[in-house]
């Protein structure tokens, strides 16, 4: 009995802990003036207004940023899933020299402070004239999420018994068809996670987009939100409203695939 109460209490406390900052952002977005500061703890007050949301959509380029972000994220997700699923399959099913080295280097790639990679990366892009268009972003976003996703997918593929592919081969499938018709459908939980991570990488990414995109017509949501901030005059209301809207699709995505997360991530973790 005490256990139950304790459990409920803990969960509630952590639920509040987890939820509160978003509520805080919500309350800031509902404040009429640009003030970040009030002295009350309330979320909704008599002065709550939707003005910021209205201004966000009508007077700023928010919709443009959203369109750009959606486009980039969609392409990156497709690319990421395509690349990760194929190369992980090759790694899983094929033994070759240096395979272990490659696997370890996928893990090792997470260990280098990403910030230092920006500089040389920028130089490559500049030399290849990929600055200020989406191609550079497609390349870097799909590639940065890759190591984790490949690791993930490979671990999942390892759990698929070889007999399944052998049966398909005997049934008359070419190797490509085996992959496409049998392996991919069976790996859907892991694919979903890969898609999610690829999506998250590009939707929420700021630093690299700031370096690559210079034309405001091309701004993504993080860049756009940042423009509301100035060290000397931040428009907090707009920023908060934008932040909420940016977070909502990701939240929805996460929630809808959370059951896949549980099984898909475990596969990877168990096999390690």
């Amino acid at each position, binding site marked *: 009995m005490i256990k139950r109460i304790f459990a409920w209490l803990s969960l509630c406390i952590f639920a509040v802990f987890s939820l509160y900052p978003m509520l805080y952002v919500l309350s800031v977005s509902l404040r009429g003036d640009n003030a970040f500061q009030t002295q009350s703890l309330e979320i909704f007050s008599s002065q709550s207004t939707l003005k910021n949301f209205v201004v966000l959509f009508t007077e700023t380029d928010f919709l443009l940023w959203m369109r750009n972000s959606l486009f980039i994220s969609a392409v990156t997700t497709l690319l990421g899933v395509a690349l990760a699923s194929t190369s992980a399959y090759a790694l899983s099913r094929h033994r070759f020299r240096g395979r272990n080295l490659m696997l370890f280097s996928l893990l090792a790639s997470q260990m280098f402070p990403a910030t230092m990679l920006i500089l040389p990366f920028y130089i490559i892009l500049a030399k290849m004239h990929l600055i200020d268009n989406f191609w550079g972003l497609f390349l870097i976003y799909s590639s940065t999420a890759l190591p984790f996703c490949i690791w993930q997918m490979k671990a999942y593929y390892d759990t698929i*018994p070889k*007999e*399944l592919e*052998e*049966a*398909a*081969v*005997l*049934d*008359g*499938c*070419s190797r490509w*068809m085996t992959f496409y018709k*049998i392996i991919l*459908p*069976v790996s*859907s939980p892991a694919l979903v996670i890969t898609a999610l991570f690829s999506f998250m990488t590009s939707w929420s990414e700021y630093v690299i987009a700031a370096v690559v995109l210079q034309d405001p017509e091309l701004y993504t949501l993080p860049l756009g939100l940042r423009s509301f901030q100035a060290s000397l005059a931040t428009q907090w209301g707009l920023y908060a409203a934008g932040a909420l809207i940016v977070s909502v699709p990701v939240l929805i995505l996460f929630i809808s695939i959370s059951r896949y997360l549980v099984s898909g991530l475990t596969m990877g973790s168990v096999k390690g």
Partner: protein
Amino acid sequence: MAHIEFSQITKSFGRSHILKGIDLEIASGEFLVLVGPSGCGKSTLLRTLAGLETPDAGAIRVNGQDITRQEPQNRDVSMVFQNYALYPHMNVAENMGFSLHLQKKSKTEIANRVREIAQLLQIDHLLERKPKELSGGQRQRVALGRALARQTSIVLFDEPLSNLDAHLRSQMRVEIKRLHQKINSTMIYVTHDQMEATTMGDRIAVLKDGVVEQIGTPSEIYHQPKNIFIASFIGSPEMNFIEGAVVGQLPWPEAKKPGQLLGVRPEAIKVSEGPVLAQEWELGDYQVELSENLGGQTMLHGSLQGQTVRLLVDSAKEYHPGQKMKLKIDLTKAHLFDKSSGLNQRL
């Protein structure tokens, strides 16, 4: 209908030599069982025929054509896997019809064929279900159905019944045999269970350590085992092997040599009471230690000259532990093996 020939098939994985020059010929329409202990190479041999492994040396010919290097997709071979290997995202009908679908057959043709096979295997009520909703036995039938739907000239079985319980196993054994009678494909069946081998095969090939020890009909293997291994492996209950003075006294010239074993099956040993016929031979004093009631018969365990010997007797009679008796054997059903070479001396 396919005539299959293996010539000098050799295969190694790293440092292990799995197949050491297998020669085997399988007649068209035959049901051949490959049997042997684990690691003997039977599955590997099967898989070379399927094309899932490529032999290091040797050739495989089907109807005279060398298919050793042919891609598995292009071979006229289907396979039933031990773990069923059903496609989890397709239902039963789709699983069975998959290969036909790949051959671009029409939907009606596929549906008809699938229904035909499903009725044959009594799974036609399961066509809409997914594999995870089926029991083990049902899954096995679906795997069977998938292999048969293709109407290939060769059907391979890789220990398909090992994951089923005893009752289902005996049921399926009969069904597969019946299927073979209906369909005239050449079937090759791999198992480690000697019971399946003897009940199902037209011929049995016993493998050990990558070599074919003996090949013949079940009857030949059973009654004329070439060596100790085959004699002990095939046949249930297992053969008794007796050595020592008893052996030397047997009325065979070869028995006088040192290092010989008498091999005699429990059903060939009788309690010696009454007259000893010409083909019978008295072994000696026996003391019962344990009796197992097998239903119609009883298996007695006891010691003969310090060695454990088993024999089958009629259940009607009761025997108690400690009971002493004399044993006799049927000489026509007894074998003599050389301990060092293992070979049957009297074949």
